[in-house]
């Protein structure tokens, strides 16, 4: 038998999805963008990629082991009594996932959108807006996950992980990263100037400080607690704490549902916005 090397042409590939629902926004190839970002990472300074992950580690060392010696152990209503370092470790894990996800989905997306004309090029191929959204968000998730896994690798030897359930913290960190990446890219795609992006960044600091990362929320008045419960970082911290402490309850499903909404809304708005901007 003669085997002939015949490759599918771009047209054949595109026509496979012809007539399917969503064929005008989705070609089934978000991987193409992830591969592109891998290439770009290879030729860029890989140090930049990993530098973001050391920040939460520094917080853990300074607060967990520095301040932790003064504070002793902490106990949040309904939770176990743990060392201060063990208390803030899950929160910093959540923050790692968030930082990694936002690094790509905000600044990098803004640069590609307004300076590099990157999406103009991508959208003139047979990719659709949903491929682009999922590819870029997916890449940000990978970065968030890399930060989270790196963080876990650092804290495990320090004796801060108490339960095998903590392994579930990795997929959970993935969900957190996905939520933040989707929301981050959706918001960034609506911004038109650097200043606006700075404002968004500025809001992250109070969220980090007041989302119950560093002290139990029950010290706050009731009303403030309700506001904080609505914040994504609190949702992420609460989810990861319960996994790392091995205290599973039904609230976990609530957190997952919360992020599912973030993901769906974020991806939808990003797709719409990409369509509006680049297929106008």
């Amino acid at each position: 038998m003669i085997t002939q090397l015949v490759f599918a042409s771009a047209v054949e590939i595109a026509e496979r999805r012809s007539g399917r629902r969503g064929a005008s926004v989705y070609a089934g190839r978000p991987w193409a963008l992830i591969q592109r970002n891998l290439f770009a990472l290879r030729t860029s300074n890989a140090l930049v990629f990993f530098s973001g992950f050391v920040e939460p580690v520094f917080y853990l060392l300074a607060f967990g082991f520095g301040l932790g010696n003064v504070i002793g152990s902490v106990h949040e209503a309904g939770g176990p009594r743990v060392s201060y370092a063990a208390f803030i470790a899950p929160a910093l894990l959540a923050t790692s996932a968030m930082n990694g996800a936002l690094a790509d989905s905000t600044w990098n997306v803004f640069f590609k959108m307004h300076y590099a004309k990157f999406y103009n090029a991508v959208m003139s191929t047979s990719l659709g807006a949903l491929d682009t959204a999922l590819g870029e968000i997916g890449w940000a998730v990978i970065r968030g996950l890399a930060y989270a896994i790196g963080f876990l690798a650092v804290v495990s030897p320090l004796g801060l992980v108490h339960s095998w359930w903590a392994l579930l913290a990795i997929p959970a960190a993935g969900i957190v990263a996905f939520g933040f990446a989707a929301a981050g890219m959706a918001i960034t795609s609506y911004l038109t100037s650097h200043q606006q992006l700075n404002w968004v960044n500025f809001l992250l600091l109070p969220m980090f400080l007041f989302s119950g990362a560093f002290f139990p929320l029950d010290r706050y008045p009731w009303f403030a607690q309700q506001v904080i419960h609505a914040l994504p970082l609190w949702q992420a911290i609460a989810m990861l704490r319960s996994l790392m402490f091995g205290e599973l309850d039904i609230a976990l499903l609530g957190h997952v549902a919360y992020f599912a909404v973030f993901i769906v809304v974020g991806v939808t708005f990003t797709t719409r916005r990409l369509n509006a901007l680049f297929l106008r």
Partner: protein
Amino acid sequence: MIRASGLTKRYGEFTAVAGIDFAVARGESFGLLGPNGAGKSTTMRMISATTLRSGGDLRILDRDPDTHGPEVRAHLGVVPQEGNLDTELTCAENLYVYGRYFGLSRRFLRPKVDELLAFAQLEDKRDVKVDALSGGMKRRLTIARGLVNEPEILLLDEPTTGLDPQARHILWDRLFRLKEQGVTLVVTTHYMDEAEQLCDRLIVMDRGRIMAEGSPQTLISEYSSREVLELRYGTGRNAEVAAQLEGIGQRMEALPDRLLLYVDDGEAALEAVVGRGFHPIASLVRRSSLEDVFLRLTGRSLVDE
């Protein structure tokens, strides 16, 4: 291949393309000419399924680009006016990754990338980041990138702007060969020689409308004379002499630096001028060109709103 009727694009109140009709047949090379802001790039973007039209109808290979974007774009090679190469990647990676966006396989792309680098004469820049290329090299790489999916229709928006004469001629040669292979070309350009060289048929646009349509030859015979006689009497005297040359040739244009007489026979016209006693400082008889047609149709002044 491409059929547009009443094709319209509005940006808010502003109408960039005001209801144009044209059709491009398979294997044809079709030109869009017009002054800055005429709506050429906007038309190109609508054809390339990257801008939605605001009115009229458009079919690319019998498909509506507004509703079948990815499918239509799979048939197209696009070379946009504004460079949008991936500056974070090398030359070879730019071609490879762009092919991956179309879903093409690794094994197809590996030899393809080499072939296209050779096409763009960038083999020795293979692993160089795009940032480090000269303007003309970037242009060549952009054109090569547009060919990665072996398109049936190649859309070139000012392909040779910024290229040196050698590169320009090489590119024309390559485009001819693509055309011979049956690729349909749609080209915009500000170089009239390029339009004459490349286009079987073209439209001249101005302010979103079509001013004229036809092959370069028919346009020249329709809108200009066979030859043009250029006369110089010095900036001070040109206007004065112009008034005295009435009746020679079909049409005359008095510019500050020279007079243009549109005539059938340039030498005979020059004799007639001298016969009336006006010896020019300098004179030139030349064939009428597409540039004359262009200037006649779109005027000599800069109309930038």
